[in-house]
């Protein structure tokens, strides 16, 4: 298999690193060589966060080169555009339909792009752009924090790792109380693509 490059992006505090750790563990258990790295600004909340995950027969660099990502998973829309240039021309973007305007927007010095602008910006790189109502779906399932799981479920359709393996890795990484709802969230996210 050719090395798979997955970029997960979002805002500090959203659980980007957690999600990429989970995918990395699943890839490890599937027998691949795995490298992953998180590039954070300062070790603080609220900033832009990006995590690089690569797996395959043998991986050298933990960093993905621009234009080489097979899959971009974005937990926030503005961050999706910020890292969109990492996408391959035949890559896929799975973007949570959530806007978290940074303080620069709130204070009026910057502007937050509208949905049409976001989709257009991403389609410059690949036609495969999916705006997913992740936060709304997670809330409907009872906990907005499960948005990561919903998105992972959706993104699992683009991964060469079996959904069962992903689900069981997810299960193993969660406290007992959260297992069942997250498995439901994963399945819901997964089936949203099939529809």
């Amino acid at each position, binding site marked *: 298999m050719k090395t798979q490059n997955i970029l997960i992006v979002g805002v500090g505090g959203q659980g980007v690193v957690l999600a990429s750790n989970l995918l990395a563990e699943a890839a490890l258990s599937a027998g691949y*060589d795995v490298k992953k790295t998180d590039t954070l600004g300062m070790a603080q909340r609220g900033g832009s966060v990006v995590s690089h995950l690569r797996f395959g027969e043998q991986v*050298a660099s933990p960093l993905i080169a621009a234009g080489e990502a097979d899959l971009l998973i974005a937990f926030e829309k503005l961050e999706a555009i910020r890292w969109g240039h990492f996408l391959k021309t035949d890559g896929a973007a799975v973007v949570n339909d959530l806007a978290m305007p940074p303080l620069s927007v709130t204070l009026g010095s910057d502007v937050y792009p509208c949905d049409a602008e976001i989709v257009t910006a991403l389609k410059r790189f690949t036609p495969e752009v999916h705006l997913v109502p992740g936060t709304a779906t997670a809330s409907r399932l009872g906990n907005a924090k499960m948005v990561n799981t919903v998105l992972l479920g959706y993104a699992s359709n683009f991964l060469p790792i079996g959904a069962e393996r992903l689900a069981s890795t997810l299960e193993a990484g969660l406290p007992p109380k959260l297992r069942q709802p997250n498995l439901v969230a994963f399945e819901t996210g997964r089936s949203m693509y099939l529809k």
Partner: protein
Amino acid sequence: MERLLLSGNEAIALGACHAGLKLAAAYPGTPSTEILEAIAKFPGIYAEWSSNEAVAVEVALGACYTGVRAMACMKHVGLNVAADAFMAASTTGVRGGLVIVAADDPGIHSSQNEQDSRNYARLGKVPCLEPSDSQEAYDFARSAFQLSEEFDTPVLLRPTTRVCHSKSVVMPSPKLELERTPQFSHEPGKLVMLPGAARERWRKVLERMEKLTIYAEKSPLNRAVEGSAELGIVASGIGFQYAREVFPNASFLKLGLTHPLPDKLIRDFAGRVKKVLVIEEVEDFIEQYLRSQGITALGKEIFPRTGEFSPDIIRDSAVKAGIIDNTPAKSWPAAGLARRPPLLCPGCPHSGVFFTLSSLGHRSTLPGKKPRPPKLTICGDIGCYTLGAYQPLGVIDTCGCMGAGISQAAGMAKAGAAEKPLAVIGDSTFMHSGINSLLNAVYNQAKICVLILDNGTTAMTGHQGHPGSGLAATRQPAARVIIEELVRGAGVRNASVVDAFDLKAVRAELRRAMASSELEVIIVRGDCPTLTRKRSRPRIINTEKCDNCGACLLIGCSAIKKSESDGIIIDSGACVGGYCALCQQVCPKEAISESIGEAV
């Protein structure tokens, strides 16, 4: 065989543990922090957060004198603080193995500068090991202890941010079971560095370097990977991994031991290839050596001298230099996007004092109002509270290195600055080296105002303990140094404690202290919200009362948002509620109140 997915830092910790580590000491600093955090979870190893890096090295050195294996960990700038202790360790050498980890930060992800710690290895005449992934981080940690004991030297282990903070597969080796009873034996000629003994020891240090140079030639830490004879790449650290991606067919000389360098190995390698490239992050440490040996090599002429490398940067540089010609069509990031700098968290106790400083100092203005010339001189320091430099707070005028703020303020006052300078420092930084600066200010009667922002933890690096926190590295209770008692004991006559979330009290205390002609210390106390996770009813904005003046936005709270359609709103998922309530205190229309319903 067992396959683990570990970060470089976790791998260093496991490697050291499997090498029979007995004691580890560190001061937290990105990207090194997680090494000690991981070690603290292993049973049978003593792990501590020391008050600063010099102390950490001294603690580890003392332990190694009893014959056990010990380690001190820090980030690159920490090695500056520990430089004296580091040189002392080099001179006396060791009993049990001593490894000093200095994690460099190319690209300055979260530091105040970019420096190449390999220069300290050269200065201290100690071996330097550079891992390039987690497996090597694990293996090199083990090798470092062995080298340390074999050559009677501390060993510098130099990972970089990308090695520390990337995860890759580690296959661990069997754990060494060292049967060592810690015991000190007297040997003044080795351990008491009076000039006579020191001269003798330094001669031994020079001999040690000669032996290490011979060792470097055959060390398994350095290895050649045969490929095309057209291009030979000498690389260390993460640069090796990037180079493998960009030049899959080249020959490689992969250097794990970069001080001292293997003369013959390099010469033989260079002789086998037509062209030599040196790929190393930050300085031309290896390249300079090659040149000094008369070997023609390309390095920093092509590759950047500053910043973090990536496969992209190496490919672009090589294309530009004509070493490779084809490059895939490249895409560029979208321009003009709204920036997203890190912020103080919702419910951060620093927000209130910074908001007050900002309003007293004319640092921020309501949206649409004209900015005024800033007042107050505010010397900052290293920690979360450095984020107070960002808008809308904008209240930090200087930030140099750990503990510098108080001394800088004293310097300004002594230089004759018209205005009484303020210094802002966190509790952990105060314990690290702020104490020294405060003692100096007391002694020299500097008329400054010192704000110690006490959130009870080392928050920036992830809530590590310190002498004022009452929490050990293992998360067990520890003795707690009370800051106000310490400050008063140091001779400060005017020391007060104020609640960080009581804006009126903060403002009154600040005004009083600035008007006073004495040295004033104000301890602003409030727990870090991401540590305590204290939450109560989130605040809510009454849209009928709110006139969108934007006063609440000036706190810089990320839970308060403004949208075109809904005006200003508070994100109930992010707001910590009654624990903070700063926004409620600043709203001139009293439009902010407790939400009704269940506590979140």
